[in-house]
């Protein structure tokens, strides 16, 4: 009973702090809150007693923690009914969580620092823009979403094959070139709308609902952004589930083995090329899906939404939150997508701050805020996470 109470209190605390963090007006106040969150997590993780109690509480009431967590996330945007803008911002945050989990398939699982990941996001978004706005095709949205993922995946494989044997700097440099090439191409091609991008992308319509409409519930007019939030959230939960299943499968274990020592992995009989292809295919597909939510939410997309800076941001999210830990990645992605809104005054220094975060994390806490957990097994060949 005490454990359930601990879980309840911790999750409520996280909700309250998050709501407060977004509502707080002053930049300094937000900064103080952010620093104290980071320190609380850092020292909480360091203090054996606290860590043990929390781990014990969460692992012995996992299902409760999970269900409560999901309920609270569903409630979360209701605190911002007075300002649709914030609902929009947290929806973008959810989209970035999806992206960061996709990126982790390469960065976390195989140590492939992809610095052009925004390209796949852009390709997904443009696929939707081209299909729905430019050509005005009336396909069911879920088909369009799937197509966006597949087109991004095809580009992922196009990047994967020529970089097959590359590691480290060589790989990263090639991905920078790839990201820039995609950005410049959509910027220069008339077919994709050039620098002006694609306008008037229609809203998602799903099962007879139009996500662009404002629905009235119990007499409240809900902002249309809320529809997108819930839709993005469902996709995010699905992506998390898939990522978790993969992480605990043979694929996840093989990725980690290859990441640590590809020669030893080959000596176990692992075909490392195939696993690299999996990582690219799954990662870029997820990015394409994120793009497919982004485009109709924005209604207007342009090359400036998918730049090198965006790629760096995604890398920073994974490294800050915790490589190979889904909750950590979600935290990192959410923090870094909210922070710029709070630091508008410093927006010129945004990239500098991201670079600083990456450097500080790599030096002081390379495993991220919430580190990767050791898989727990109860039968051969399959893992059970803690």
């Amino acid at each position, binding site marked *: 009973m005490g454990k359930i109470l601990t879980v309840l209190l911790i999750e409520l605390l996280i909700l309250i702090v998050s709501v407060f963090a977004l509502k707080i007006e002053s930049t300094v106040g937000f900064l103080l809150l952010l620093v104290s969150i980071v320190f609380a997590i850092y020292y909480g993780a360091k203090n054996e007693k606290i860590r043990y109690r929390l781990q014990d509480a969460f692992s012995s009431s996992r299902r409760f923690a999970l269900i409560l967590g999901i309920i609270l996330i569903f409630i979360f945007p209701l605190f911002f009914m007075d300002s649709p803008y914030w609902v929009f911002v947290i929806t973008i945050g959810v989209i970035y969580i999806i992206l960061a989990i996709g990126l982790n398939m390469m960065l976390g699982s195989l140590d492939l620092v992809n610095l052009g990941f925004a390209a796949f996001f852009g390709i997904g978004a443009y696929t939707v823009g081209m299909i729905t706005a430019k050509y005005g095709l009336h396909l069911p949205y879920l088909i369009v979403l799937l197509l966006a993922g597949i087109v991004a995946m095809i580009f992922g494989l196009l990047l994967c094959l020529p970089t097959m044997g590359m590691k480290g700097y060589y790989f990263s440099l090639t991905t920078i070139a790839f990201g820039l090439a995609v950005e410049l191409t959509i910027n220069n091609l008339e077919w994709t709308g050039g620098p002006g991008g694609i306008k008037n992308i229609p809203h998602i319509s799903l099962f007879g609902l139009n996500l662009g409409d404002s629905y009235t519930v119990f007499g409240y007019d809900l902002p249309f952004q809320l529809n997108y939030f819930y839709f993005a959230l469902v996709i995010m939960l699905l992506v998390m589930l898939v990522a978790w299943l993969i992480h605990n499968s043979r694929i996840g*274990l093989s990725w980690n*083995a290859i990441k640590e020592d590809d020669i030893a*992995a080959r000596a176990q009989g*692992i075909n490392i090329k195939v696993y690299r292809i999996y990582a690219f295919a799954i990662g870029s597909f997820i990015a394409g899906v994120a793009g497919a939510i982004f485009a109709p939410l924005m209604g207007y997309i342009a090359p400036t939404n998918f730049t090198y800076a965006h790629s760096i941001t995604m890398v920073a999210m994974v490294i800050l939150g915790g490589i190979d830990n889904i909750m950590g990645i979600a935290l990192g992605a959410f923090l870094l997508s909210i922070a710029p809104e709070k630091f508008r005054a410093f927006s010129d220094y945004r990239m500098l701050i991201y670079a600083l975060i990456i450097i500080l994390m790599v030096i002081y806490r390379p495993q991220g805020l919430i580190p990767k957990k*050791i898989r727990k*097994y109860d039968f051969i060949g399959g893992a059970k996470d803690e």
Partner: protein
Amino acid sequence: MLRLENVEVYYGVIRALKGITLKVEKGEIVSLIGANGAGKTTTLRTISGLLTPKSGKIYYNDQDITYVPPYKRVGMGIAHSPEGREIFTTLTVYENLVLGSYLRNDREGIEKDINWIFSLFPRLKERLSKPAGTLSGGEQQMLAIGRALMAKPQLLMLDEPSLGLAPILVEELFEVIEDINKQGTTILLVEQNANMALSISQRAYVLETGSVKMEGDAKELQENEDVKKAYLGA
């Protein structure tokens, strides 16, 4: 079972193996001995496919495997416990063993073999869900051998398995190797501890700067004056 014919291997421009010819028959323990840098590790890596010969041929069960990729050779029954404990230090002991059985599908057999390995190396059982990097050097060595065994190989190649083990453990280890052999696994053994290696082997090859300098019955080599002087510290 295994035959190398005039195998030449280069690291860039360095000619590490200068035409090696050797064979291993089914059921044998064969030792490769030689000074540091003689090419023992290179030979094993070539057999497991991590290096490709510039010329020469490798036959396994009368099949030419010279250009077969490593992951397929594991499937054919060749397992390699590499020098210097190349285990996965960030993964747990259990995960390392599971990775060793990567190409197998017989869940019950895998479970049985894990228990067999725990009976060979009880220390590993206690550390089942610890990251392998937290094991002592000797325990890591045991894990490397256990992981190779998990592939249920026909041919097990061990590269300096006694490296860094306490003397008492070395004796135990050699007993385990003989045990594994008795259960039907053919063994190709590389050892600095040449005396021990020769005493459990049927045949041996002496490598010197990338060539086979001597070969023959292990007991005879053990008595050979040149071998004694150069490798047995007599």
